């Protein structure tokens, strides 16, 4: 005689069909002579939150004399047989809530991630390590069936719930046949065809021990084996690649990518400048450090390919980009697509693109400044698919290839890059590990307009600290400062970090309690 019901917890977020799944399971049980009950707290899931559906199934309903069993409305930790999660972190949440026991709980989850607000809001990379999550669930569960249900649902044109239902069937943990499962979907009557397809695919995956035990690849893995047989017709590029091959094998990949980036940005001569700069570091005392060269190669390329108006115009007008947008928004060939770019260049960006002398002059408070400023008060939507919009950006891009080197921005960036490289060379002599951390600080400089200004300010703050404390600075301290700078937009964490480490903050921050940098435009006078 059966003493205990089958207890199932479903963890899902809004729009993933957790409620549909729960209803299917109840229909399946009730339709086949079982008692079933489900409860949930709806409403919250609708508005982006996560919710838990709890089900209990008990046999004997088809016996006319059967007494109604007493079900409960929420899961008792340690007393759940099956956990179904629509997403990987939700499986983790089941663990946290104590629903997963090693001796009895089968966990079925998708391996894809829906990032949390916290993960998304981070100024750098706030993503949780999926592999760690997966390992935790694997360790806690009796059996863990998982695969990427979001992808599979997408392929089938269904909702994740159909995949979860299929996997539940494939796992063989419920005493119902495949036909009974499928009949339930058919009886439900909504999106039957696509749901059955997703069900079928998921069923097979769950049945296949290997398929259902695959994990997420974790964070991106870059294959850094030295590139071979790179073909080019350009003698100048050929020469650059030759210089790359002069470096140790484990640096060749990143240098090649760096060269590729800066040539794409400007021209082979710019690639030569990149390699010259790398050579200069390698020639400095302590500069042969592989890690240092590796990261400098990365960040130098990124810095040299700084995002000015020419670059943005170039990237926005490429045919490959038009195609990418088409793919991203799922536009069919028979549909007409127009693309509007949201741009808001400030007077600074406009001056940056001018010849240095002119740009500097307009930046000063004079009539020209006031005149140009009139055009920067509002953001504009430029249609790159229209003739005027396209031609404007296209000309801008072409102009960049010709005249970038005389632009104000180029002068400013060059000066900053050279100062940074010089500092790295100096630091390499003191401690290559310290130089490495300083090189990585380039990561702080990103974005545009105000975002860029804020990053640059943090970068400069840290560089100042380096210059003042070059001989008694631990690499770990530098890393801590860098992370602190990425901790918040207002520079508060960086300020605290500097204080904690006993560095003088005089002159670095004017008013740390107040945001020393605003993310927003200044009020119009």
């Amino acid at each position, binding site marked *: 005689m059966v003493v205990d019901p089958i207890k199932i917890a479903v963890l899902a977020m809004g729009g993933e069909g957790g409620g549909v799944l729960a209803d299917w399971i109840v229909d399946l049980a009730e339709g086949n002579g079982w008692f079933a009950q489900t409860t949930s707290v709806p409403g919250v899931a609708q508005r982006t939150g996560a919710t838990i559906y709890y089900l209990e199934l008990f046999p004997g309903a088809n016996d006319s004399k059967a007494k109604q069993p007493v079900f409960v409305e929420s899961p008792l930790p340690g007393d759940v047989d099956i956990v179904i999660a629509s997403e990987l972190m939700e499986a983790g949440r089941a663990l946290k809530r104590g629903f997963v026991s090693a001796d009895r709980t089968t966990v079925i989850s998708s391996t894809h991630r829906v990032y949390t607000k916290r993960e998304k809001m981070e100024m750098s990379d706030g993503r949780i390590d999926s592999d760690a999550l997966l390992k935790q669930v694997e360790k806690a569960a009796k059996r863990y069936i998982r695969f990427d249900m979001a992808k599979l649902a997408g392929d089938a044109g269904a909702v994740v719930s159909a995949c979860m239902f299929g996997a539940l069937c494939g796992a063989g943990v419920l005493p119902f046949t495949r036909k009974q499962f499928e009949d339930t979907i058919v009886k439900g009557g909504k999106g039957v065809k696509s749901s059955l397809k997703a069900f079928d695919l998921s069923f097979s995956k769950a049945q296949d021990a290997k398929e259902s035990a695959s994990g997420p690849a974790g964070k991106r893995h870059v294959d850094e084996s030295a590139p071979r047989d790179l073909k080019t017709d350009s003698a100048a590029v050929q020469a650059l690649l030759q210089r790359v091959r002069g470096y140790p094998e484990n640096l060749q990949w990143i240098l090649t990518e760096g060269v590729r980036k800066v040539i794409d940005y400007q021209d082979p001569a710019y690639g030569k400048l990149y390699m010259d700069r790398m050579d200069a570091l390698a020639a400095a005392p302590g500069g042969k450090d592989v890690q240092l060269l590796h990261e400098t190669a990365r960040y130098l390329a990124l810095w040299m390919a700084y995002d000015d108006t020419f670059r943005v115009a170039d990237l926005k007008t490429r045919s490959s*980009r038009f195609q990418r947008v088409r793919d991203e928004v799922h536009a069919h060939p028979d549909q007409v697509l127009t693309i509007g770019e949201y741009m808001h260049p400030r007077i600074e960006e406009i001056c940056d693109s001018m010849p240095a002398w002119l740009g500097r002059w307009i930046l000063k408070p004079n009539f020209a400044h006031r005149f140009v400023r009139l055009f920067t008060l509002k953001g504009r939507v430029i249609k790159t698919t229209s003739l005027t919009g396209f031609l404007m950006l296209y000309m801008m891009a072409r102009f960049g290839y010709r005249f970038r080197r005389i632009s104000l921005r180029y002068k400013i960036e060059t000066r900053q890059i050279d100062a940074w490289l010089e500092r790295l060379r100096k630091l390499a002599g003191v401690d290559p590990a310290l130089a490495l951390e300083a090189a990585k600080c380039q990561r702080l400089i990103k974005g545009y307009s105000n975002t860029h200004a804020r990053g640059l300010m943090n970068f400069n703050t840290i560089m100042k600290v380096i210059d003042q404390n070059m001989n008694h600075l631990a690499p770990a301290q530098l890393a801590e400062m860098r992370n602190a700078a990425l901790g918040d937009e207002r520079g508060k964490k960086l300020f605290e970090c500097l204080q904690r480490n006993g560095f003088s903050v005089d002159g670095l921050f004017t008013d740390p309690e107040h945001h020393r940098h605003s993310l927003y435009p200044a009020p119009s006078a």
Partner: protein
Amino acid sequence: MAERSFKGEVKKLRLGKGDVFHGEGIMAITKALLESGVSYVGGYQGAPISHLMDVFSDASDILAEYNVRFENSANEAAAAAMLSASVNYPLRGAVTFKTTVGTNVAADALSNLSSGGVTGGALIILGEDYGEGSSIMQERSHAFAMKSQMWLLDPRPNLTSIVKAVKDGFELSEATNTPVMMMMRIRSCHLRGTFVCDDNRASTFTPKEALEHPVRDLTRIVLPPASFQHEVEKIEGRWPRAVRFIQEHELNEFISEDAANVGIVTQGGSYNAVNRALHRVGLSDMYGNSKIPIFVMNCVYPLVDAEFERFCKGKRAILIVEEGQPNFIEQNVADILRQREIDIRLHGKDVLPLAGDYNVATVFVGVRDFLVEYGFVEPGKFPDPVADVHPVSLFELQRRKQIPKAHADEVSAEVAEQRAKVHKVQAAAAAAKAATRAAAVAKQPVPSVQLAEVEKEPTLDDTVQGRPPGLCTGCPERPIFTSIMLVEEQLGVHHIASDIGCNLFSIMPPFNLGNTTMGYGLSGASSEAFNVAPGSPAADKRAIAIMGDGGFWHNGLTTGIANAVFNRSDNVTIIVDNNYAAATGGQDIPSTRTNRRAIRDAGHAIEDAVKGVGVKWVRTITRTYDLEKMTKTLREALTTHTDGPKVIIAQSECMLNKQRRVKPLKLKAIADGKRVVRERFGVDSDTCTGDHSCIRLSGCPSLTIKENPDPLREDPVTTVLDSCVGCGHCGEMAHAAVLCPSFYKASIVNNPTPWDKLSARMRMWIIAPLQAMAARRRARFAF
């Protein structure tokens, strides 16, 4: 238009005698009302009974078949007042709302109703929003039953018991001339189960007959001397009759009454959890065959002294399982035991937590400890369920009641110190490790780029983060809050009185706006103190109240707007006019501009109402997504020299409801071959640098991150999911906050006209060759 349609499901309401009903608690209640011959129903939506209102609404034609009048009440007070139809006439009526917020609002009408008493059965169905999943302050409805002397039912959480309670409630109400409240807990409302139906029946007496043959009874009107008489009636007549009814109809249940010399007394709503707890320690089974006596109170107010005397007979101790605080039942039981000189040990909140949700885990621990104490369970045999339950009840603290609170703080401070020490050591170790590795690394191939990382096994605290609810994709309220942020950057931080509704999500990241919330529709009223005394110099800033349209019609028009005019307030109120009571599930309200239905007359402009009560400075913004206009208007409201309250009405339809309304229409138009433009947004991963400012400013669920396609860049780029509805906020925001040029708007023309196609082709005749030229130039240097 409600967020969930019950149009199909309401057909089940026609099931007849002997049919088995499969469905949710709220549907079962509606069926029970029909089976009870109810004449009128009303209420105000709010979790967990929002969907009950939706069922009433979707079943309005079935209700009409049985001559049932259904009304969307203006608020809970209005709903309770509606029950006055049962005072003079044998009309059965039921209203519903969430509690305790609903009982608070309805208290005046409920007091009057229970003073004069009722002739026809009056049932108040309470959605007890307490415990996990609740969104309001944690209080009990029980106090309202006690103070007004209304009877309170708390049925066992299964559909059969719930349906029975509805029927019992009407009979109890009529037998005692007293309104009866029935408590539905959060999960019970959406509990899906079965029960055996009875036939529906129409009332023999209808509101029409009442209208045509009015009855007046001066003794039922609450005014001296009748009001004094009412109090005596309650004590001398209604209460004793209630006690008798409860006993005679066996509303409360004795289970295995003499099975042991200890017993458990439980509210009906907690019975299932008690049984499961006993089941887990081997003293009951799935059918409730308990080896420990249980007294189940399906009626928790009033208590029946005689039933307690009966249950306590031959027992050494009883445990009261009573959710919430104060422990009214336990106090009452103590009184009964004392009065009747019953010598028995009384347990309750000494074993169970003082406050918080009595979920299965909590009840299990309490019941187990009680049974261990009296030798029915071997100590240590059944361990605590291990779980990190949030919100944390007092459960843990109470169980470790040896540790006083102050000491607990010390402990955590100690732990924090320890942790800080560990971190320091780890950092130093990492630094040393990094240095050694850096020194050694020159000789070795580079395995990975990451250095200086402490390798330790991550815990669940590291890997699992919360998912607090927030504004939906495309929510029209998002730009309102963004504009407040932008204005505050210029004018400084303001005092913001928040309200109840989706707009309260503003208090969370990324907006972090709002200082207080005082109740539905009360944001305006709650900022009234922030006005300078007459004659003193004006303040540099004004308080801002944010009010939803639901709250506005609930009471905000009078409490927040009319009275602000009357008292010459200088504050700014932003009314979010999104067409529905959105937070409760998108129910229609008087200003709803879409979805007109025969049973309602909607579409009444908030602006007219506001002007009608005398506001001079009113601005209506017909598209909240127009960030520039929003910002400009708000700045003007905060800086204008005009006296009196300033009201901004920010209109755009609730996106959740709009999508539900528009999507099928669009799909049909596309299928019919009509020209339909679909808009959505995207982020160029080429130009996105992975700073995520946009995400921090907007918080749109469709805005997320993905792996950076650039092999050199490490930070993930922002991307827009397919769930994007093209509201345009991210683009507007990128403009207003001068973020970055990565946002693009894609307009996809379905079924393009010949002109659409031709002009697109003509443009590409020029664009494509130019693109090819640029590509050739790049190809020259590519490798």
